[in-house]
């Protein structure tokens, strides 16, 4: 979404700020005749619409709130597909009085002022009853009156305000998570209220000890405490018993087990003492324990839930509407309305929505997201194309064969979703520790009991119970959830979404890191890799290619100042071959070597043919540039290695990671990329099918943990199988669904940041566990020697929780980014 800005930012005029977004305006776009200046056409459109609607206060609010800056983006689409009955049936909810409601995922929502602008929708469009924005999820819920406004006009308004809408997907999974969250929150509330009330009674009881309380009041308070305590263990606390039973069934020790043990033992002892009418009752400590542990769980869940929501909502960006061709008429229709045999128009730059066969048109198709192959595949009548591939150069008409879940892409996605999240795969650190913890607490308790039975039988039971309470795993239970929840929250601010917290713990140890090539290590798509010849020729080439829609033509225009480029006369483009035109009086031919030969039959100079062979050898595409009959330059085109890739891999190697590349692309291309990256590679595989990638990951996992980084559909199976799957920026829907972690920023720097953050998080977890265990060891020694009574134990207990809480919040795991200063 924000990538477009990066191109614009290349040459900013430092003094002029865009009237809409406040980012610098590129020099070429400065309009001296105007008061308002804009960094892009989208900002200009949005600025005009906001003013026309009388919503100027948006800009005041933005100044007051000092919000982040982001350039606007509008698509200018007409959204007529939103009015189709198939679309409304799939995405809208019908309300009484011809009202409907829909959830739309908006691009470009970034700040508090956006909330104000979007929720003003009912004022600028009659017929919209209500618009409510969920800021962290970029989700707007709109209620509109179908008789007075069509959904497409509402969608157009949103688009023109700079928030292109998409029907939100994943609603059911989100609703299920919301229900789960609500249930947990209710448990916390009940546990908190019970703990608070039991504490009040406990204070009265403890002070009554020194102040000779009347027996009948003491008895009342003890019975009420028991009632509330049993309620706390029985309802909110039942979650730990369920976990303990599950852990016994699975024969893996989990922290729920010692918690459940402490709850039941101390609860039973307390109940016996209440009935007996003497001794400690423990219910104050128990209810507080249940409450604090549940708070830890809520914090952890909400951090993970936010990441899952954010990633799933990205699926909404896949196109929801298609252009149908019916009797030579073009018709916008929702994807739900496509039937096999329908003819669709796919324009250059659009994603092919169905599996089918090209009916008409010549173009090139980028299938890298499906196969990992970086070179575009040609599409001609009769050739099959797959859903998910991107049409690059010219419009084509496709006859649909399979749609939706039946497509190759749909089947992969379905399979990944059915396998579900596999968070149980890795046993967590705390769970492993808890086994030792349980054993040592139980043996300490029996030692205490036996010891005191020998010394002073009357104090044996009370000292044993004091030991159990004081070593209650409260701090331990909070240690990991708190550290991880705090880290996940900070990570999501940095554009790193972690869906499964175990993944973060796993990344703290160096292991084998396997990367996909296309789109992960490289930029994905055709770029100018090398220019051999005079630099002064580039503007002329750009001028000739500026009208081209071919990916190579567009790549030749990138990075060239078009304002300084001359104009081309008589430009003629030959699809898949090249272009010819007259620039500054000289005839210029740009294209494949064969094409240039066919135009001129000129002699190819030695250096040019060497460059041509060298490029072909490396799996790249050589382009010849001839002026006035002689080849003057050679442009080598290909998928360019990301600028930060080499340095990022070097940093990771220094941290002990072994790095390997597993690519679906040709082996020669992979070798060329490794030559550019430099350094040592533990594994190099080219031409790997999705199944092979998955096998490679599985084999490697026998020797140790494997992290896999990829972005394509062809990586999805490997992402799911790996110990940790990381989906790179711009990844396909299937890879997002399969991965544990999603990076929203391009390049490999976020990966380095993620791994560094994981290491720091692990250190915080260890520090927390250390503090909790140290406290427990000290307290256990005191209890063993009979130096603390159960009351002192109950007062000391929360101290370990507080220590852990402070340590987690103050820890620096994922450092917050400095605000970018344009």
């Amino acid at each position, binding site marked *: 979404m924000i990538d477009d800005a990066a191109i614009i930012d290349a040459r900013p005029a430092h003094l002029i700020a865009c009237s809409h977004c406040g980012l610098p305006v590129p020099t070429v776009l400065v309009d001296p005749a105007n008061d308002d200046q804009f960094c892009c056409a989208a900002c200009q459109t949005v600025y005009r*619409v906001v003013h*026309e*609607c*009388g*919503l100027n*206060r948006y800009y005041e*609010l933005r100044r007051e*709130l000092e919000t982040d800056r982001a350039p606007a983006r509008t698509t200018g689409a007409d959204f007529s597909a939103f009015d189709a009955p198939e679309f409304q049936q799939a995405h809208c909810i019908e309300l009484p009085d011809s009202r409907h409601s829909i959830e739309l995922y908006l691009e470009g929502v970034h700040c*508090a002022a956006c*909330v*104000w602008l979007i*929720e003003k929708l009912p*004022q*600028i*469009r009659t017929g919209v009853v209500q618009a*409510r*924005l*969920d*800021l*962290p*999820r970029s989700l707007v819920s709109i209620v509109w009156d179908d008789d007075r406004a069509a959904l497409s*006009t509402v969608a*157009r*308004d949103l688009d*023109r305000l700079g928030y292109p809408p998409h029907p939100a997907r994943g609603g059911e999974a989100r609703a299920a998570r*919301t229900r789960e*969250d*609500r249930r947990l*929150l*209710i448990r916390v*509330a*009940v546990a908190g*209220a019970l703990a*608070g*009330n039991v504490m009040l009674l406990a204070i009265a009881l403890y002070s009554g000890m020194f102040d000779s309380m009347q027996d009948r*009041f003491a008895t*009342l308070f003890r019975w*009420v405490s028991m009632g509330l305590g049993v309620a706390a263990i029985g309802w909110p606390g039942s979650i730990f018993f369920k976990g303990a039973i599950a852990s016994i069934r699975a024969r893996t020790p989990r922290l729920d087990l010692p918690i459940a043990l402490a709850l039941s033992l101390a609860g039973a002892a307390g109940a016996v003492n209440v009935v007996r009418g003497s001794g400690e009752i423990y219910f104050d400590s128990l209810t507080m324990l249940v409450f604090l542990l549940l708070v830890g769980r809520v914090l952890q869940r909400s951090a993970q839930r936010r990441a899952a929501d954010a990633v799933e909502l990205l699926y909404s960006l896949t196109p929801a509407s298609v252009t149908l061709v019916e009797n030579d008429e073009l018709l916008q229709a929702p994807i739900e309305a496509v039937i096999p045999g329908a003819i669709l128009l796919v324009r250059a730059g659009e994603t092919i929505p169905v599996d089918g066969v090209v009916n008409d048109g010549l173009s090139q198709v980028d299938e890298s997201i499906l196969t990992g192959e970086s070179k575009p595949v040609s599409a001609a009548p009769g050739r099959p194309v797959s859903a998910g591939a991107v049409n690059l150069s010219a419009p084509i008409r496709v006859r649909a064969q399979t749609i939706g879940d039946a497509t190759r892409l749909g089947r992969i996605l379905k399979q990944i979703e059915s396998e579900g999240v596999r968070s149980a795969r890795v046993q967590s650190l705390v769970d492993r520790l808890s086994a030792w913890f349980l054993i040592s607490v139980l043996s300490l308790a029996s030692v205490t009991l036996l010891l005191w039975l020998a010394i002073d039988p009357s104090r044996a039971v009370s000292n044993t119970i004091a030991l159990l309470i004081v070593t209650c795993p409260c701090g331990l239970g909070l240690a990991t959830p708190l550290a991880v929840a705090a880290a996940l929250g900070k990570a999501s601010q940095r554009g790193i979404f972690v869906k499964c917290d175990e993944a973060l713990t796993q990344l703290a140890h160096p292991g084998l890191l396997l990367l996909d090539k296309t789109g992960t290590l490289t930029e994905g798509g055709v770029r100018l890799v090398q220019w051999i010849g005079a630099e002064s020729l580039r503007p002329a080439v750009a001028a000739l290619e500026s009208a081209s829609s071919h990916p190579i033509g567009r790549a030749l225009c990138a990075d060239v100042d078009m304002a300084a480029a001359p104009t081309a006369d008589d430009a003629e483009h030959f699809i898949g071959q090249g272009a010819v035109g007259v620039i500054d009086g000289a005839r210029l031919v740009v294209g494949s070597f064969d094409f240039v030969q066919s135009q001129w039959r000129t002699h190819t100079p030695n250096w040019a043919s060497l460059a041509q062979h060298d490029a072909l050898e490396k799996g790249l595409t050589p382009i010849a540039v001839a002026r006035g009959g002689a080849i003057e330059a050679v442009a080598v085109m290909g998928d360019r290695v990301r600028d930060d890739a080499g340095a990022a891999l070097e940093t990771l190697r220094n941290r002990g990671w072994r790095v390997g590349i597993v690519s679906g692309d040709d082996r020669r291309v992979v070798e060329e990329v490794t030559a550019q990256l430099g350094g040592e590679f533990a594994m190099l595989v080219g031409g790997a099918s999705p199944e092979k990638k998955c096998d490679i990951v599985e084999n490697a996992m026998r020797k140790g943990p494997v992290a896999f980084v990829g972005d394509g559909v062809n990586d999805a199976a490997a992402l799911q199988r790996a110990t940790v799957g990381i989906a790179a920026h711009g990844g396909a829907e299937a890879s997002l669904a399969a991965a544990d972690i999603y990076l929203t920023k391009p390049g490999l720097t976020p990966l380095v940041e993620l791994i560094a953050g994981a290491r720091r998080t692990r250190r915080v977890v260890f520090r927390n566990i250390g503090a909790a265990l140290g406290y427990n060891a000290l307290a256990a020694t005191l209890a063993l020697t009979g130096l603390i009574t159960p009351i002192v134990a109950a007062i000391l207990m929360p101290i370990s929780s507080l220590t852990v809480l402070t340590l987690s919040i103050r820890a620096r795991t994922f450092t917050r980014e400095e605000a970018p200063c344009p």
Partner: protein
Amino acid sequence: MSVIFIVLPLALVIAAAAVAAFIWSVRTGQLDDLETPAVRMLFDDDEPTEDAQDPD
């Protein structure tokens, strides 16, 4: 008969009412999004502007 036998159950009933109110607020979705309402309250309730035009 001490007043505590009345006040204690009463206190518990009040606490239960507070918990019930919280459960209601959770069930009606008021705690699903904790960020947007915090932002929304910063905006003044300005009058709908009369000169608002149709954006088309």
